[in-house]
């Protein structure tokens, strides 16, 4: 109601104008009356502004003339528009004579006004000034537009604007939606704002890992476990799917299940459960084949995804790399998000800005540091020597302990310590070596980011020993089982035979009662054993990690926080203090865990499911732990843009875990009575079998050709050559890139120097100054004068007069206002700059007939220059 009225006052010109445009042809006369009335109203409204003036009357007179010529004008419209590029002042001298030209002029001015109206919102003027200028312009346009019969574009324009707004809004919403779809984005951002990007990089890595594992999980569950559960033989139908008689009593006990024995061992989660039937169910699903292919594609997919993300990261880091000219400035001026209206978010933002500043400061200090380079080098070499000694020592220790354990295992009645010696030594090493490395690394005085990489590499090397012993023990186990298997195979054979014989001997008429599957003696099934080993390891790893976080971080934080009130020294600042988030340990934990998954997933398809759960819980748990009980690092540092170092470690582990699996697949015989490949000599025979039985003959032939070493070796050679070539090309590109970067830097410096000598006055700048200190500047060019006039509405009318007077003198044809409004034409803009650039030669005479000089081209817009040259 009333509000609308208020709004009307602001926009009535506009809204009513729109209406008017549509109705113009019919109600021209009427409208004109209305317009006049409204004009009067607006005059009253104009704060203290003197009523519109002489030239308004004058223009009204003109208008009458022009209405008569209206129809003519419409014919000439196009002509007029073409002329509109030439500036108004140039035409003003000879306009009097011809009415058509007058018309063209008018049109031009209307165009200009319109342009002004449409660009008004982009002008950094005060609102009052904008309003008054706008009103003037709109009045002008209305007056003459009717005469010229134009103005239909208005609606279309409004529509376009509306659509643009809608589009922007849609894009924004879509963007929001997209960020909301990224899981844990907010959590990670929160961690990042308090702990810096290095800690956040761990969580991002964790999230990435979760994604990869989800895909692996989908592969294995969708193609192996679910078909087996749905279509395979049910539990109890086969010896391999049944718990043996001896174990049945305890098979459901929790302690047994916890060790992944009993029912769990004889379930679809492990290799041994699967049958070697070629096809299952009514779909004729080839399960052994699927099992084999999924096992391979787990590795294939992981390799592909790791390498692809490495490549993408490398790409990103080079693409964004060159924009580092304004790190601090951007941080200073664009880091605060003005959208923030929530106190909590604001707190986070303050924290994150502070951390990011600290990160950059650390970088900066690091690059500025110059000390005794020889001393530092010496220290670094020393540190490396020390660490290599440590690594060698621990490697030997592991080797020694493993050897000893092998002798122990042959002896009877060894004590608890002897049995668990390897594990104890390993965990002691894992506990004490990383802090030792960290202490030694303090000698090196690297940037924390590089320091983290070294630390990661060193602990990785240490943990490799861990892996090595584990695999060695496993191989021993497997070999033992293989030997055992031969024996059992015979027994089983004989039992079955005996059973048949006995039943046949007793009574030939009665069909032999089938032997209960639980009673059949069976082999040790080394594949399942391996799988169980990996699952156990993973689970215990999860538990250890979580308990360490609970005790080492949370309990410690609670202790420090609450006991501090009654303690003799300051616990928070002193000895125990709060824990820092251990990036290297956590990243390596994740990487090694993933290695276990890759190795184990072939023998325990359910392992990936466990890992998915683990990653999911650990995301929430660690986020909570880090926010609740850790403190940021003393030197918060920025993570490198690409997580490629983590990815590199992951790739290495992937490769290392591929080796044993490939070895077992290629060179160990599968168990005779369990798993999808039982009865075959090697696991990969399943492929041959499929090719032979399911494909036409020529496919088999093609395969046999492809497997020919004569073909494979050249192919490998070709690949090596391609890699070499591509590598060389990328090196060349890199060099070119660096060169270009250097050039750009040089250019920037040059520009800096050049600007130093230049007194640059930018129209934009003038606007700004205008805005900042109103009415202190002496008025110079006509445009400025015009601006001034409209800007200072109160009382500065004397100052305004000269500007208007000039305008009037220039063009009798009402152009006064319009002419002065030659919107910032490019000619004008370039003027001061070129002047400045030419400053060194002002007094130097120049030959008149200089043909190529810049004079002719710029002559019109820039009258001072030729004069100076003369």
């Amino acid at each position: 109601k009333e509000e609308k009225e208020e709004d009307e006052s602001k926009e009535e010109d506009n809204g009513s104008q729109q209406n008017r445009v549509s109705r113009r042809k019919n109600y021209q006369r009427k409208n004109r009356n209305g317009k006049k009335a409204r004009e009067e109203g607006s005059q009253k409204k104009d704060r203290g502004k003197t009523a519109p003036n002489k030239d308004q009357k004058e223009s009204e007179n003109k208008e009458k003339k022009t209405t008569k010529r209206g129809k003519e004008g419409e014919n000439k419209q196009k002509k007029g528009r073409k002329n509109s590029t030439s500036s108004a002042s140039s035409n003003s001298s000879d306009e009097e004579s011809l009415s058509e030209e007058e018309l063209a002029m008018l049109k031009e001015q209307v165009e200009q006004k319109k342009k002004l109206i449409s660009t008004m919102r982009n002008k950094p003027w005060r609102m009052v000034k904008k309003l008054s200028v706008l009103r003037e312009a709109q009045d002008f346009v209305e007056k003459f537009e009717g005469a010229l019969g134009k103005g239909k574009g208005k609606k279309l324009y409004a529509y376009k604007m509306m659509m643009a707004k809608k589009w922007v809004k849609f894009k924004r919403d879509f963007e929001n939606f997209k960020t909301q779809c990224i899981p844990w984005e907010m959590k990670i951002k929160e961690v990042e704002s308090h702990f810096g990007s290095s800690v956040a990089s761990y969580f991002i890595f964790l999230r990435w890992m979760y994604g990869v594992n989800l895909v692996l999980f989908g592969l294995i569950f969708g193609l192996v476990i679910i078909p087996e559960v749905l279509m395979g033989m049910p539990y109890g139908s086969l010896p391999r799917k049944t718990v043996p008689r001896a174990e049945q009593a305890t098979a459901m006990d929790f302690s047994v299940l916890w060790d992944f024995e009993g029912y769990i061992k004889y379930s679809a989660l492990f290799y041994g459960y699967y049958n070697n039937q070629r096809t299952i169910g009514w779909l004729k699903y080839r399960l052994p084949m699927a099992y084999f292919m999924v096992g391979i594609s787990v590795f294939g997919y992981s390799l592909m995804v790791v390498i692809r993300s490495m490549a993408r990261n490398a790409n990103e880091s080079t693409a964004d790399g060159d924009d580092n000219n304004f790190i601090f400035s951007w941080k200073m001026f664009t880091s605060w998000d003005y959208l923030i209206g929530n106190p909590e978010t604001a707190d986070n933002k303050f924290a994150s800005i502070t951390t990011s500043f600290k990160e950059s400061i650390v970088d900066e200090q690091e690059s500025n540091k110059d000390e005794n380079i020889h001393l530092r080098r010496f220290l670094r070499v020393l540190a490396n020597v020390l660490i290599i000694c440590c690594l060698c020592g621990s490697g030997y220790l592991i080797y020694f302990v493993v050897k000893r354990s092998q002798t122990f295992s042959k002896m009877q009645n060894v004590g608890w310590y002897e049995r668990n010696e390897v594990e104890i030594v390993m965990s002691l090493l894992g506990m004490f070596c990383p802090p030792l490395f960290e202490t030694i690394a303090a000698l090196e005085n690297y940037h924390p980011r590089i320091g983290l990489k070294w630390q990661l590499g060193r602990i990785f090397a240490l943990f490799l020993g861990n892996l090595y012993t584990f695999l060695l023990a496993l191989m021993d186990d497997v070999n033992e089982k293989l030997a055992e298997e031969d024996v059992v195979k015979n027994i089983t054979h004989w039992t079955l035979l005996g059973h048949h014989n006995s039943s046949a001997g007793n009574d030939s008429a009665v069909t032999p009662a089938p032997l209960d599957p639980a009673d059949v003696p069976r082999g040790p099934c080394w594949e399942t054993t391996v799988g169980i080993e990996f699952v156990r390891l993973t689970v215990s790893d999860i538990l250890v990690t979580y308990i360490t976080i609970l005790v080492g971080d949370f309990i410690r934080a609670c202790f420090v926080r609450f006991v501090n009130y009654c303690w003799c020294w300051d616990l928070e600042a002193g000895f125990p203090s709060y824990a820092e988030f251990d990036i290297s340990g956590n990243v390596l934990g994740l990487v090694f865990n993933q290695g276990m998954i890759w190795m184990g997933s072939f023998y325990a398809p359910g392992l990936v499911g466990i890992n998915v759960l683990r990653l999911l819980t650990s995301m929430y748990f660690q986020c909570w732990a880090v926010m609740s009980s850790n403190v940021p690092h003393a030197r918060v540092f920025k993570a490198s843009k690409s997580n490629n170092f983590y990815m590199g470690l992951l790739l290495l582990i992937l490769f290392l875990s591929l080796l044993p699996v490939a070895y077992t697949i290629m060179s160990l015989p599968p168990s005779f009575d369990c798993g999808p490949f039982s009865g075959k000599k090697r696991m990969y025979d399943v492929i041959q079998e499929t090719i032979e039985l399911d494909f036409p003959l020529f496919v088999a032939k093609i395969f046999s050709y492809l497997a020919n070493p004569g073909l494979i070796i050249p192919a490998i050679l070709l690949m090596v050559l391609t890699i070499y070539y591509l590598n060389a090309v990328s090196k060349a590109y890199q060099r070119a890139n660096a060169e270009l970067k250097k050039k750009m830097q040089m250019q920037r410096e040059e520009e800096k120097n050049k600007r130093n000598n230049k007194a640059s006055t930018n129209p934009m700048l003038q606007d700004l100054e205008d805005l900042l200190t109103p009415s202190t500047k002496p008025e110079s060019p006509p445009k400025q004068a015009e601006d001034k006039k409209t800007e200072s509405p109160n009382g500065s009318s004397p100052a305004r007069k000269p500007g208007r007077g000039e305008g009037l003198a220039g063009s009798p044809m009402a152009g006064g206002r319009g002419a002065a409004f030659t919107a910032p034409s490019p000619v004008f803009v370039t003027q001061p700059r070129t002047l400045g650039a030419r400053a060194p030669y002002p007094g130097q005479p120049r030959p008149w007939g200089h043909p190529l000089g810049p004079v002719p081209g710029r002559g019109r817009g820039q009258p001072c220059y030729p004069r100076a040259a003369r």
Partner: protein
Amino acid sequence: MDCTFFTRKEILRLHGRYYEMAPNVVPMDYTKDPDVKLPMQLIINMPELKENPFKERIVSSFSEDGEGSLSFNDFVDMFSVLSEMAPRELKAIYAFKIYDFNTDNFICKADLEKTLNKLTREELTAEEITLVCEKVIEEADMDGDGKLGFADFENMISKAPDFLSTFHIRI
């Protein structure tokens, strides 16, 4: 409407907000163009501005008298410039004004220090602050006068990737 980036509806809403802040001062009816101004204290308590460390600067940059009280026109102007439809150049001009604490048309070291302290809630040490300020001037100062003029500022901000997305308030 041609002066701002708002539609009629949005301006009405803005007026609603403006009216809300001081119902007994601001008239509902603006046809008579009353000369009403709200003091800075009221405006910086808007939820949109409340958490902003530069709220005082924003308001005083847009106030016509330079003392921080806004008429409705200024109020609309402020949100128009800060709306997402406003072009980069316009935003840059006002951003410059906002960060120019002592309004001398240059962003000098003192301004930078103030900005930094507001951004980080004074959690950096004095050394760090001077380091950052020196770095900023070194990076962005093209004409070598030891302070940032508008040309420097615009040159710097025009390359900033997220200036447009952060320098905007939705209302």
